[in-house]
């Protein structure tokens, strides 16, 4: 789960990392009230869960209330790569001398989190990794977290001045505690700045929480911004499904993530375009199938739906029951192609057969069939 900048900064602040004061505004008037207290020049920053805000014009420095009113009004309501801006962060502008990068992610290869620091801050770290990898230092964390001496080594890599290192090192240690304590999968400060007054500040914060750990962080789970997500994806999560919207016309309902990806790929291979990734999971709950059908049939681009079920833990008859229940409860006008193989396949075929429906047993055949039906429906 991605957090907004202001939410991430709250976590940093709580851990004792210096973060400039700042408050969230939902309107230009609120923004002016906040800046009046915090002082000008101020920075107004769009709060959206997508990168590239600056380039899109979602971050502006303003000198006075008039300029702030104009910029806040413009940013609130603008759309950044499909994400509508509902709120802005208002914060005093800093006099920046240096911009650094510090971030912690999981290093899958080494199987531990890794702190990455770079003196090339303020730009995309992936770009730095590609063009000037020597400007990144990796420090792996272990059961001890980040020991002070290793934090000092990272600080030395960033800045040669002891007075700055002395501020950077404890900040990095605290970043490691933010990462671990909140079950983050990313905790990033970019830029991490040294001001002209030689103070160290986290000017931005990007924190991503491990979805699998939200159960043990109800306070963080409550930070989820539903206005920033695709309604279908929210509904899918509530229904226990894993769903990602794509651009195509062929809806798919699949059990298992790998098979769901392979089904999308196969649709593309045979000349169709998948409308989504949808995994109904391993359990045998007919309600999930109904929820899946609701999401797909509401999507006007979907011209045909493919069920691709390989029964294991999932029992084919449960999927058939869910589908029939869904068809009873809602009007489905688009064609449905069903492929069933595996556990309780025969029972499923009997259930469908009683309602005049048939199921294929071969995945390639089913994909070709659904592409043909979608073309007819177009």
């Amino acid at each position, binding site marked *: 789960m991605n957090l907004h900048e202001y939410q991430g900064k709250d976590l940093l602040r709580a851990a004792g990392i210096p973060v400039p004061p700042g408050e969230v505004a939902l309107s230009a008037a609120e923004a002016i009230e906040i800046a009046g207290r915090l002082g000008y020049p101020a920075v107004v920053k769009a709060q959206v869960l997508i990168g590239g805000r600056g380039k899109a014009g979602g971050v502006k420095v303003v000198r006075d209330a008039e300029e702030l009113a104009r910029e806040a009004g413009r940013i609130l309501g603008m759309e950044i790569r499909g994400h509508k801006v509902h709120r802005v962060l208002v914060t005093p502008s800093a006099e920046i001398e240096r911009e650094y990068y510090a971030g912690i992610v999981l290093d899958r290869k080494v199987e531990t989190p890794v702190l990455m620091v770079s003196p090339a801050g303020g730009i995309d770290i992936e770009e730095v990794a590609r063009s000037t990898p020597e400007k990144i230092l990796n420090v792996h964390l272990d059961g001890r977290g980040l020991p002070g001496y290793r934090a000092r080594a990272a600080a030395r890599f960033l800045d040669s001045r002891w007075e700055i290192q002395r501020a950077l090192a404890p900040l990095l240690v605290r970043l490691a505690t933010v990462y671990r304590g909140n079950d983050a999968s990313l905790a990033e400060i970019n830029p991490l700045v040294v001001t002209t007054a030689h103070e160290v500040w986290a000017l931005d914060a990007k924190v991503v929480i491990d979805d699998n750990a939200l159960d043990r962080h109800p306070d963080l789970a409550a930070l989820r911004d539903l206005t920033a997500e695709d309604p279908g994806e929210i509904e899918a999560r509530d229904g226990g499904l894993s769903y990602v919207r794509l651009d195509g016309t062929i809806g798919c309902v699949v059990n298992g993530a790998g098979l769901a*990806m392979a089904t999308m790929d196969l649709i593309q291979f045979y000349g169709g375009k998948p409308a989504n990734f949808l995994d109904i999971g391993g359990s045998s709950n007919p309600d999930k199938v109904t929820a899946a059908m609701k999401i797909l049939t509401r999507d006007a681009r979907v011209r045909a739906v493919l069920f691709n079920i390989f029964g294991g833990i999932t029992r084919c008859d449960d999927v058939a029951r869910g589908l029939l229940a869904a068809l009873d409860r809602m009007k489905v006008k688009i064609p449905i192609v069903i492929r069933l193989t595996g556990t309780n396949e025969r029972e499923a075929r009997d259930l469908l057969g009683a309602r005049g429906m048939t199921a294929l047993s071969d995945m390639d055949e089913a994909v070709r069939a659904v592409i043909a039906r979608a073309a007819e429906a177009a």
Partner: protein
Amino acid sequence: MSILVGRDSRILVQGITGRDGSFHARQMKEYGTRVVAGVTPGKAGENIDGIPVFDSVEEAVARTRANVSVIYVPAGLAQDAVYEAVDAEIPLVVCITEGLPARDMVEVAAYLHGRSTRLIGPNCPGLISPGQCKVGIMPGFIHTPGRIGLVSRSGTLTYEVVWQLTRAGMGQSTCIGIGGDPIVGTRFVDTLALFEADDKTDAIVLIGEIGGSDEEDAAALIERHVSKPVVAFIAGQTAPPGKRMGHAGAIVSGGAGTAQEKMARFERAGVPVARIPSEIPGLVAAGLARRGRGRLSVVHGVPRKAAKSGGKKPKATRRKAKPAGRKGKPRRAAPKPRAAKKTRRSRP
């Protein structure tokens, strides 16, 4: 005996009284697997279809000499379940549970370091040596004994590929689902080494997906150390970047971990990559034919070469594999010599 599990495996089910645990304990037993014990704290003395339930793994191992544990407990309890099995010195632990926080697996990975237990999973379907032993949740009937080794990060996609191999007359030595999480106990490279060393495996099928770099590591290993034909397939060619595709580990981040990159890396390593799953059996057959081993391998169901190779055991202990998924108790002929051997081996 294929790899990792076989006729000698004695299975312990952690979480056996739960919905999934009890269902799959029965399924494994029906397949002919020796399910010798179950563990659920507080339920000692109960039994599930005759499988005795114990309060702790330690006690279950002491009483039943279980040497493989399979875990079906909820995600919040899975880390502790793995620790309990590792501390009981069970050589092979298979964690089916999905949804473990990554931090829990970071800690598990560190704890496993330097210990003798091998962990498979989490978030995996388990593993099966067809006709011998099924540890996990996969449907048994789609498999058939044979000489193709299969390793995959997926569950149902693995079933799909196994089913296509079986229908093409290509049986399997062992099929392993290593799991879809960012950190798993056993990776592609580990299983490739095992398959390469296994004289009952002639060719290997590897099913990867987007995210991480385990496929790239596998390709590098194959280049240098794998002489057997390998065929790869990568799921997620149409996955958009930055989106998690179901599996916690299946995400393209920062332009890295794409299917295209992984496919290209395999091709550079000389590994044929199937564009779609149904191309896999043909590519396997071609690989075997190039090696001149095709005739031995592509024989439906019956591992013909097995009757000749090894030569360590009297023929009496080998039997044609029973058709999978059938009810009833498959009893084995002449288990004595094997039982004796197993006893020695399982004592630490």
